[in-house]
């Protein structure tokens, strides 16, 4: 491993390494193997790309900081994820240190494609360690990968590895120990037609933008292949001088017909093709280096069924049905535990605190608020268990593939499927999952319609209203299931209709051109799945402990202050509530919601639903002074009876079947979730879209209920 010039020794303080690779190359597995539990998961400020930083140790016990960058096919970014990878590597982000050294991970079974990104990274002029992962699969496919040859050619350490089995980790850690990692001996010829532009841009980048010479060269090359650069928040923009030079070259090329991006990519692939041919010895009999891959042949056989126009849908539908059954039935058991735990906690804290406002704040505000959200943790864990399982087996890409035809009808592509699916459990993970959608307009459209999917917080509301709607005490199963399905259908139809509308108007764009890798099927790695569940769960719990806690306290305050005047002592609690800010707000919005069949008491429920929709049930309990019982079912029955007997001032029943139906439809369409608004604000980096979403969804809900109630009334219901 001779090098033309050794790199300067790594700094004394923990050096920063970046881990980079294509999607599906085993990067996360390697990151988890190197850092273990010493990870911090957060977000890059202003963008919703996940930022994972961990501490790893060299073979000699020296600590180092390892940044796991999002998977990318190229530094010429097509999605926010790839843009973050590019910006961190180029030192364009002030919030993340420029990595001292880079660990590239490549899939040995598909070396040529993986080497494209490696090739771009070698240009950066920083020490690189190349990890060839999945050597076992390459060997199974009959490929001999000459890592030593690649190492000599590139002048960097090349380490064969099987991250899934922990093989090669010691060699990698030994390489991390080396104080004198060589700089890549990397030479490729920049096409002559582009060379003057590259040197002019390079000079400007080092003079005007303060880039080191080699980074400047790499960035100059990148600027030429970044036709419509994805700019993300937190990335330092180009200096005006450099931007001018770039613009003038682009104009010159477009006038004389030079395809600079095509020329550059082709030149790189020529160099890579040569490297790959020398590095990979194909099986003696096989005509093509990777065509004989046994795993791939098996994958093709599975795909023949899994992506079949008929069987594909059958398999897809059964998997989805299993998943939903899991989310809505299996989760019930741990949800019961959490409920009793929160109840136990409430009782104990209640006994500790003297009665008074502080007691009520802790019990009814903080604990009840957090409890109302934490209760969904089991569902979210089960959802992510399934998503993790589908991802690690490789089926997820097939699900997106199958759904592409449906999604393309409304102008979205298959990649919007996962976010929408997740939103049936909770819109928050759903909106977070929209990050992988490359086209910004498709991503935004997906985020805007995701909360239409009936989330699990609406479930208790639907159940209560259906129970109040039918006159018998036992709800006929057919009615319940039928109404339930109708609500889910309405939400889904709304999501698709609005996605179509947005793609036709506000977010008009060319039909998305989907190109997506289908990774070979693999046995799931349960450790990675568990890891992901833990990570997601932690993010969710953290949110419950911060944002949602604060919001619950605010809503509690609004429902309890100002206190009713002292003369009202002994009055039923409904008056205290009526006197509070929430009650006044309920009265204030009554004229607005009266045409939908709702009175001010329902209005309070609607307002309080902003904490979490299922709070509606407990507000109804408070308003109609339902006695709490230890038996959950009994409380529900009391509540149902209270709703049935509730009357308007003129003595007519309040919760007529039509009002119940109208209220359910309102819950289907309205945006009533502060947590979702907060997430959308973060995801879209501003208040514009969450406020738009709040307005258009609630407007739709109002209009739908107005039509339903008024037509229903006219028909005599």
């Amino acid at each position, binding site marked *: 491993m001779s090098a033309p010039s050794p790199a300067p020794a790594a700094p004394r303080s923990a050096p920063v390494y970046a881990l980079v690779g294509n999607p599906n190359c085993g990067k996360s597995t390697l990151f988890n193997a190197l850092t273990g539990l010493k990870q911090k998961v957060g977000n890059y400020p202003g963008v919703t790309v996940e930022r994972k930083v961990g501490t790893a140790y060299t073979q000699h016990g020296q600590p180092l900081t390892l940044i796991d960058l999002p998977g990318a*096919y190229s530094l010429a970014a*097509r999605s926010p994820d790839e843009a973050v990878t590019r910006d961190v590597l180029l030192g364009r982000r002030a919030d993340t240190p420029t990595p001292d050294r880079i660990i590239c991970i490549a899939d040995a079974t*598909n070396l040529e494609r993986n080497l494209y990104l490696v090739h771009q990274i070698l240009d950066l002029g920083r020490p690189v360690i190349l990890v060839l992962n999945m050597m076992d699969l390459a060997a199974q496919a009959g490929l001999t990968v000459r890592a030593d040859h690649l190492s000599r050619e590139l002048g960097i350490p090349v380490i064969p590895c099987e991250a899934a089995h922990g093989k090669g980790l010691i060699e990698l850690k030994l390489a991390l120990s080396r104080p004198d990692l060589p700089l890549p001996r990397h030479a490729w010829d920049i096409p002559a037609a582009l060379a003057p532009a590259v040197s002019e841009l390079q000079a400007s980048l080092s003079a005007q933008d303060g880039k080191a010479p080699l980074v400047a060269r790499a960035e100059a090359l990148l600027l030429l292949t970044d036709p*419509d650069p994805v700019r993300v928040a937190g990335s330092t923009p180009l200096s005006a001088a450099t931007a001018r030079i770039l613009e003038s070259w682009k104009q010159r090329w477009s006038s004389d017909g030079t395809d600079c991006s095509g020329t550059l990519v*082709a030149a790189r692939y020529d160099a890579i093709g040569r490297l790959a041919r020398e590095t990979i010895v194909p099986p003696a009999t096989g005509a093509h280096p990777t065509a004989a891959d046994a795993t791939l042949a098996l*994958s093709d056989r599975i795909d023949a069924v899994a992506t079949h126009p008929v069987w594909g849908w059958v398999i897809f539908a059964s998997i989805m049905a299993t998943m939903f059954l899991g989310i809505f039935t299996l989760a019930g058991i741990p949800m019961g535990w959490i409920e009793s735990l929160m109840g136990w906690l409430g009782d104990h804290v209640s006994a500790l605190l003297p009665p008074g406002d502080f007691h009520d704040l802790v019990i009814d505000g903080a604990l009840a608020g957090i409890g109302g959200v934490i209760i969904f943790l089991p569902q979210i864990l089960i959802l992510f268990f399934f998503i993790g399982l589908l991802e690690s087996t490789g089926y997820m890409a097939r699900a997106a593939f199958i759904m592409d035809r449906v999604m393309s009808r409304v102008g979205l592509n298959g990649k919007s499927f996962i976010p929408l699916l997740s939103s049936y459990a909770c819109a928050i993970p759903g909106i977070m999952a929209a990050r992988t959608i490359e086209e910004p307009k498709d991503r935004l459209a997906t985020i805007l319609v995701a909360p239409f999917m009936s989330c699990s917080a609406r479930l208790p509301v639907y159940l209560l209203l259906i129970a109040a709607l039918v006159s018998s005490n036992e709800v006929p199963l057919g009615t319940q299931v039928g109404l339930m399905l109708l609500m889910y259908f309405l939400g889904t139809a709304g999501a698709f209709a609005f996605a179509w509308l947005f793609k036709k108007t506000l977010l008009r764009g060319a*039909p998305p051109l*989907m190109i997506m*890798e289908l990774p*070979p099927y693999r046995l799931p790695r349960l450790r990675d799945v568990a890891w992901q569940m833990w990570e997601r769960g932690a993010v969710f719990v953290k949110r419950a402990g911060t944002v949602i806690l604060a919001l619950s306290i605010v809503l509690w305050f609004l429902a309890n202050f100002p206190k009713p005047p002292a003369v009202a002592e002994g009055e039923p609690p409904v008056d205290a509530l009526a006197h509070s800010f929430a009650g006044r707000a309920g009265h204030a919005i009554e004229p607005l919601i009266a045409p939908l069949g709702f009175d001010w008491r329902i209005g309070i429920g609607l307002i309080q639903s902003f904490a979490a929709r299922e709070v509606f049930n407990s507000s109804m309990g408070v308003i109609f002074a339902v006695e709490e019982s230890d038996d959950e079912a009994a409380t529900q029955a009391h509540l149902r009876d209270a709703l049935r007997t509730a009357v308007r001032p003129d003595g007519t029943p309040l919760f007529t079947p039509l009002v119940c139906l109208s209220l359910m439809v309102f819950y289907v369409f309205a945006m009533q979730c502060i947590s979702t608004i907060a997430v959308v604000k973060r995801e879209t980096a501003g208040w514009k879209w969450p406020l738009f979403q709040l307005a258009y969804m609630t407007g739709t809900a109002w209009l739908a209920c107005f039509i339903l109630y008024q037509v229903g009334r006219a028909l005599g219901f």
Partner: protein
Amino acid sequence: MSATLARLYPESLPLCQLPAGESARVQALSGETAFCQRLRELGFGERTFVTKISGRGPFICVVNGCRLALSHDAAACILVEPTGLRK
């Protein structure tokens, strides 16, 4: 598919029209620059051999041992020259 490209490569057809199971060689890419560049970066550039595995859009194609799914519109941007049946 633009008329100019069709004139330049009379033997060719867009990838969406290639029958399933057949192999072909990529002749030219049309459409958005960014999309063409990503195709090339994924190793789906000019002169690459491609085999179409499954028929009705979206399609599954094999390029260099790697399975790629393409929507109908994406496949319409890729002009290929058929080279006959797979292996």
